[in-house]
């Protein structure tokens, strides 16, 4: 046999062994699956038709969700910008860059749900811990993207403005911000969509908003009401995508060079 053939067979064997072990650990059984499908269909029956009479109760939580997302995106982007400045090698000293980059990488590695659980433990239930958790949650992604954008700003342009006697803050205001504006805007708008989705999830652990409605309805076994809440969530997420798309196109076409 050829060497490559042996390698391929060995690889297949390893994958097969892994699959088998995983199935054992996860209690995979065809019986449970078929029973689950039958139960699932019956459950779907209980979820329909949606209970639209609960719709007026959903308005406030839905608005709350959007507001949580908006606040979190605003402060999160602001926070991220400062982390990005600290984390960009062309304007920040090496030690500060390392600290900032390390913090951003750590934040990226932490799922939002862990941050919210920590904050709920510290600040209690409600939308405010949700806002803080989502704002902190922006730093990992936005901070990194902004930082990379800042590092792409031509070092010589910075140097030339400095050679006219400008201070660091003036360099940030007149070189960095104008040059990275497209990245600032489009990434922040994208994060707004992500935060809208996440704020639903966070609602389920007590951060308020529409997510809490779903969680609450499930607990009361009011599945038809839960369906309405899920539909509202879908609407919110679609809407936030449309709105952010609209603004992104509008703002970026305005700043496009003629």
């Amino acid at each position, binding site marked *: 046999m050829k060497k490559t053939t042996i390698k391929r067979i060995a690889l297949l064997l390893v994958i097969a062994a892994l699959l088998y072990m995983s199935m054992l650990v996860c209690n995979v059984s065809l019986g449970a699956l078929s029973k689950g499908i039958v139960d699932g269909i019956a459950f779907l029956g209980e979820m329909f038709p949606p209970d639209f009479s609960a719709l007026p109760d959903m308005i406030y939580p839905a608005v709350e969700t959007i507001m949580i997302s908006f606040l979190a995106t605003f402060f999160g982007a602001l926070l991220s910008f400062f982390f990005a400045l600290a984390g960009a090698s062309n304007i920040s000293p090496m030690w500060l860059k390392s600290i900032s980059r390390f913090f951003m990488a750590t934040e990226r590695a932490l799922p939002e749900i862990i941050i919210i659980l920590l904050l709920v433990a510290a600040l209690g239930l409600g939308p405010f811990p949700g806002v803080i958790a989502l704002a902190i949650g922006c730093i990992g992604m936005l901070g990194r993207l902004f930082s990379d954008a800042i590092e792409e700003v031509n070092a*010589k342009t910075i140097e030339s403005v400095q*050679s006219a*006697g400008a*201070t660091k803050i003036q360099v940030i205001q007149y070189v960095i911000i104008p040059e990275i504006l497209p990245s600032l805007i489009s990434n922040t708008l994208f994060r707004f969509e992500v935060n809208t989705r996440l704020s639903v999830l966070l609602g389920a652990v007590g951060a308020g908003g529409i997510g809490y409605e779903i969680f609450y309805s499930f607990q009361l076994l009011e599945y038809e009401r839960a369906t309405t809440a899920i539909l509202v969530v879908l609407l919110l997420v679609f809407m936030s995508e449309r709105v952010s798309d609209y603004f992104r196109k509008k703002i970026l076409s305005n700043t496009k060079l003629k």
Partner: protein
Amino acid sequence: MIEVKNITKSTKEGRQILKGISFKAKKGDFIGILGPSGAGKTLTMRCLNGLTKPTTGEILITIDNQVHDIAKNKGKELRQMRQKIGVVFQGFNLVKRLSVLENVMIGKLGQINQFRSLFKGFNNEEAQKAYEALEKVKIEKLAKRKVASLSGGEMQRVAIARAIFQEPVILLADEPIANLDPTNAKKIMKRLKPLSEEMPVIGVFHQPEIASKYCNRIIALKDGTVVYDGNSDISEDLLMDIYGDELQEIENQALVSAPLA
């Protein structure tokens, strides 16, 4: 008035790149610095506006009748000196997403305080002066345009306008025409020359024939020392002496660009 006194610069590894460079420049001087690659031309220019500190030596610049040594100054004092030194770079180095006028105004950032630049910006009088600087290089029509939409020659003229707007006591130009075609290169040289009536203009150039045509003084560097400092009427023998093997290459480039010029 600028006086460079015996500056040297060594790398961290101890290799000496500038080996004692001295010259004086005054109003009326349009100096072209020539030399083969690695001679220390750009490094000398960086020392002149304090982007690099020489290892030893003094660079005395007279501002408002006071003599300052840019080789010694740091922080705020260095920034204050830089406000009075106009610099034009090979890569233009403008903020591409800002307008032409805004880029010119950036030249004065060092002269207004931080609080004002952050909350109020520039006043009308300054905008008017920036516009006048653009008139001097004949591109005032482009004032409102985004810099990214300009050609290389236009960008370099914006950079010169920015330097003029600084109201400098000296103008430095580091290979200002290296990225330009011959026609635009000539235009830039024509804009630089009259400025030397108001302040010393010191430029690094790659093309000896252009430098000798427009400048009124040539300083040639080789291996980190000054090998020629005199009028711009330079002989072929001198060029051979300065550039050695590189000369043929430079002349070939000149032949290629000659029909366009």
